[in-house]
């Protein structure tokens, strides 16, 4: 067997190593929650201070694209979960297929997001560079769009990292350089991917849904 070495020298056994890797990733995810938390706090404070401008600004977001993107990301979480399951059973073809689908869905999301940014530019909704807003107090609507770009931008950076990581792991699994069944790599990769999904699950109602009923 040309099985790649799965156990690093500082660990005693694979169980310990898996536990360490999963705990490490969960802790990292906790720090991510606080990383986004700083921005979300800004969102909450200004929504509390300027509700009218907030709702007026949120109504101008592209809800169709936002909803489609949410569906895409939720689906990619399913395929990521399938990759992890297939990995546990040692089914290499299923792993590579599921990872391929996951990366593709992620790329779709980014593509739609880029198109949405383009529409925002067209509608003069880019703070600092091209911003005109007549439906409400433009100063505070601009803060909404500033946070919108910041939140979705930081999220897109995370997704880009996640797609890259998925592609790297896909390559390693395909070429047999990763002991994917024993190591925690797929599980940990999955955790990160799902976090990117969870962040978006919260961004969707914060960005696209406010003020729709008015």
């Amino acid at each position, binding site marked *: 067997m040309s099985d790649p070495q799965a156990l*690093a*020298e*500082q660990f005693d056994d694979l169980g310990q190593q898996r536990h*360490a890797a999963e705990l490490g990733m969960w802790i990292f995810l906790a*720090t991510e929650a606080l*990383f986004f938390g700083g921005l979300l706090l800004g969102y909450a404070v200004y929504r509390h201070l300027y509700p009218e401008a907030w709702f007026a600004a949120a109504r101008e977001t592209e809800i169709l694209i936002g909803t489609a993107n949410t569906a895409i990301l939720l689906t990619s979480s399913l395929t990521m979960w399938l990759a992890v399951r297939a990995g546990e059973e040692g089914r290499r073809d299923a792993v590579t297929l599921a990872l391929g689908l996951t990366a593709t869905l992620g790329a779709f999301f980014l593509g739609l997001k880029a198109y949405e940014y383009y529409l925002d530019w067209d509608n003069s909704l880019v703070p*600092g560079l091209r911003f005109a807003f007549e439906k409400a107090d433009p100063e505070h609507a601009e*803060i909404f769009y500033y946070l919108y770009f910041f939140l979705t931008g930081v999220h897109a950076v995370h997704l880009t990292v996640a797609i890259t990581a998925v592609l790297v792991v896909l390559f390693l699994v395909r070429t047999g350089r990763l002991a994917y069944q024993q190591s925690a790599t797929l599980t940990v990769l999955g955790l990160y991917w799902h976090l990117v999904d969870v962040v978006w699950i919260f961004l969707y109602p914060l960005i696209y849904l406010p003020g729709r009923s008015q």
Partner: protein
Amino acid sequence: MNTIVDAQGSGSSGGSGSHSLPRQAERGVGREEATSYLTAGHGVKSWLFTTDHKRIAILYALTITVFFFIGGAAATLIRMELFTPAGDLVSAEGYNKLFTLHGVIMVWFFLVPAIPATLGNFLLPLMLGARDLAFPRLNLMSWWLIVIAGAFVLYVLVMGGVDTGWTFYAPYSTTYSNGYVVAAAAGIFVSGFSTIATGLNFIVTTHTMRAPGMHWFRVPLFVWSIYATALIMLLATPVLAMALLLIMIERLLGVGIFDPALGGDPVLFEHLFWFYSHPAVYIMILPGMGVVTEIVTCFARRRIFGYQFMVYALLSIAVVGFFVWGHHMFVAGQSMYAGLVFSFLSYVIAVPSAIKVFNWTATLYRGSIVLDAPMLYALGFIGLFTMGGLTGLFVASLPIDVHVHDTYFVVAHFHYVMVGGMVSAFFGGLHFWWPKITGRLYPEAWARFAALLMFFGFNMTFFPQFILGWMGMPRRYHEYPSEFQVYHVLSSAGAVVLGAAYLLPLGYFLWSLRYGQPASDNPWDAKGLEWRTASPPPKHNFPSTPRVDEEAYDYHPPRRPPGGHLDHPSDGRPAS
């Protein structure tokens, strides 16, 4: 001495003792253990790209020493300027840049990494009986990140500095400052990732890699202190990173959420900033408490008094430390009612701090105390930290803070905690574990002299600042009315003594590397797994995984007078 048994006798590959952990033998970690980590590889590359936690600790130590002296140089210039009432040495703007540089470097490039990334990095796996941290490459990355972050700050320094103060308050930092705010903030942003990587590594290692028999209440209190510190690092640093990112973008694009002229609220920045920076104060003191605990219990030959209370105190300081940040904002336009809550909670956090001081004192009671250099530093820590803590109650009290806010009283208060406390503890720890790290003993007489000198120099520098502040001298001014001069002169003279006390150890530590007596494995006759391996330790720390069969700090039998005599380093046995 049969309380800690090597699982496999000599650790040779065939051994299988009764407590055998067979994987050791199977995996062939055995032969190479004979050489120390210092000689296990040669050349610059074997250091710069090492994944050995002990070598990374050395890299960190060298890095923060460089930053310590840069920050110290800025402090020297500040004290020189303040020698006379007139602003004759530097301009007002130059003075602003000096104290900003001093603050930024000392906080993020010295105090935050000081004990965790050097002593913590070196000792955590040793104290837990592990071969390395859980993620050695992440550990290396964290060092490289702080080097990159430091490069940003040095760039700022060379290009002409930044004048916002280390707090980067908006809208000054986002709109009006002419300094290199973006580069400085970027440096701190990057250093934040370094901190997070270190903290993550420590927590995972403590959870998953403790030696057999080391259950949670046998973990050394130094490890507990690092654990509590790492919790803060992980949960606070991301918020600072985001706040600084917002500052940078706001400054670059001219849009934003902090500038009132653009509809923003600058107090929001202060909330985000202090959500990190107040807990960060505990990043800068908890590891010191851990070091002092190890030293006090060893040099009093007593079990630590109230081990479990010490653990709970550490953890509650870490947690409650997150509930008090608003006491930095009493006069910043924050709601008065929120101020009341923050003021009350700030009193609450004094309780666990006081528990620690009482327990150190109780440990000394009936101990056979040996006043070697580490102990002198540790006792200095206890005194100075108590002073810093008690004056903390003054500034935590809302009405008094309105009076002393932004005066030298605050400056003196936090220097008592951070410099008097943390730096004393850092030097104490360096002396205590120096034989373990280098395999050499330092000259004891010189070290005692340096410890005493630091205590006196420190008090001479900062005690007059309490008086200055109480009299109304505001911080961050480069000139002042002449009635304050006597205190400023005293302070500056003290700074000279303090500077000498910092340089002295640098000299004799370097001297000892070549001429110091070789240290035995356990020159202090101390407890703890790190003393159960060679000095300096082999690459993978232990010939075989140790097994822990005794409680922590078993310095004297329970319910009996303390026994045992401390082997003085001057007659310490050479390594076998």
